[in-house]
């Protein structure tokens, strides 16, 4: 009887321990029609993971997901890069199992990328869709600003696919010069390389949003690097 009681007590303690370490993220449909992006953004802020997001090309705004989403994890799941990828993949599987569209997660250098695997066609059927940033592009080297290079990358994607990508107000590029060329790289790799020349590698990530009413993409950036929050305490010498 004592052994049984002890097991119950220990079991309860471990459950309490798990509950204490577990973090649950939730999205509010009033705040977003992109629950996967919203969950990833919370992960970036809490765990400082370098992960990008790309919208499916929805046929209409009504196809965008305005249901709340939730994801629970424990911080230890982000201790190693492989674990981080597995945890993001688990989040995407859970989202898919709840009726959401299918996304995939791929690693490329310092960043993880969450990319669409499917969307809804005009009749509401699920159809396969790949990432627009898989598009292979080239930009010859030349003296230009980092801002101009980002625009050229977007222009090349439009040439290849017909889809316009407009850079959003969170654009971190500047008037600083660069000679960087893009030689038969994916647009994803080209954007990542440009961002890594601006800051600590992996510090800038993006959300590529698609507006089906406008039929164009908006490229948005976030910062997850070490300069995110300056320390404010005075130093004694």
């Amino acid at each position: 009887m004592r052994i049984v009681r002890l097991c119950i007590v220990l079991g309860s303690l471990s459950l309490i321990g798990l509950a204490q370490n577990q973090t649950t993220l939730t999205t509010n449909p009033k705040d977003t029609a992109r629950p996967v992006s919203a969950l990833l953004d919370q992960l970036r802020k809490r765990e400082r993971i370098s992960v990008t997001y790309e919208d499916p090309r929805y046929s209409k705004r009504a196809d965008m997901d305005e249901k709340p989403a939730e994801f629970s994890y424990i911080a230890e799941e982000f201790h190693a890069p492989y674990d981080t990828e597995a945890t993001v993949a688990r989040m995407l599987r859970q989202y898919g199992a709840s009726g959401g569209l299918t996304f995939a997660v791929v690693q490329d250098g310092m960043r993880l990328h969450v990319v669409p695997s499917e969307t809804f066609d005009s009749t509401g059927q699920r159809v396969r869709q790949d990432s627009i940033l898989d598009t292979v592009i080239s930009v010859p080297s030349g003296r230009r600003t980092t801002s101009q290079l980002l625009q050229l990358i977007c222009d090349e994607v439009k040439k290849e696919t017909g889809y316009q990508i407009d850079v959003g107000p969170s654009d971190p590029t500047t008037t600083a010069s660069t000679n960087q060329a893009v030689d038969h790289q994916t647009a994803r790799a080209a954007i990542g390389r440009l961002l890594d020349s601006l800051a600590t590698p992996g510090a800038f990530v993006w959300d590529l949003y698609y507006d089906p009413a406008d039929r164009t993409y908006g490229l948005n950036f976030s910062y997850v690097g070490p300069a995110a929050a300056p320390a404010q305490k005075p130093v004694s010498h």
Partner: protein
Amino acid sequence: MGAPWHQTLAPNSPPGEFSGRVVNEYASGTGTDSCWFTNSKYAPFTAITKPGYGWDVNGKNLWGADFIGWKLETVQYYRAQNKVPCGARFSQQMIIDAAYSPDNPSSYSGPYTDNHGVVFYGVAYEVNSLGGDITATTVTSIRNGQVATNTTWK
């Protein structure tokens, strides 16, 4: 990219007092964006875009340009979506690096990390209020209450 703003550090006494030092920007607090809507292809514009970015202070105590405000494409988008008049507001914490490290006076704070991962000590000397507004016919860039309207920025 917004409008280019150029700043002079004060007091400029002796002249060029801050020459050779670096001022870095950091996010501060939470901003607002009244242009944004749930399905928008742009994320809310509620913070500075380059945390840790540094500008060199020149021999006349000048630094910049700091581009503040909306890009042309975003202006066109929010107008087309009938979201104007609208605007964004957020804060920018400025930090100037230590003059003669490692002989830092005790008033210096930190450590701070710049956008390339370099750690330094410095002085958090001001918080600026930044933003921009869009109407059907005008675009403004705002810095600490000063407003630039309808210039040629992109």
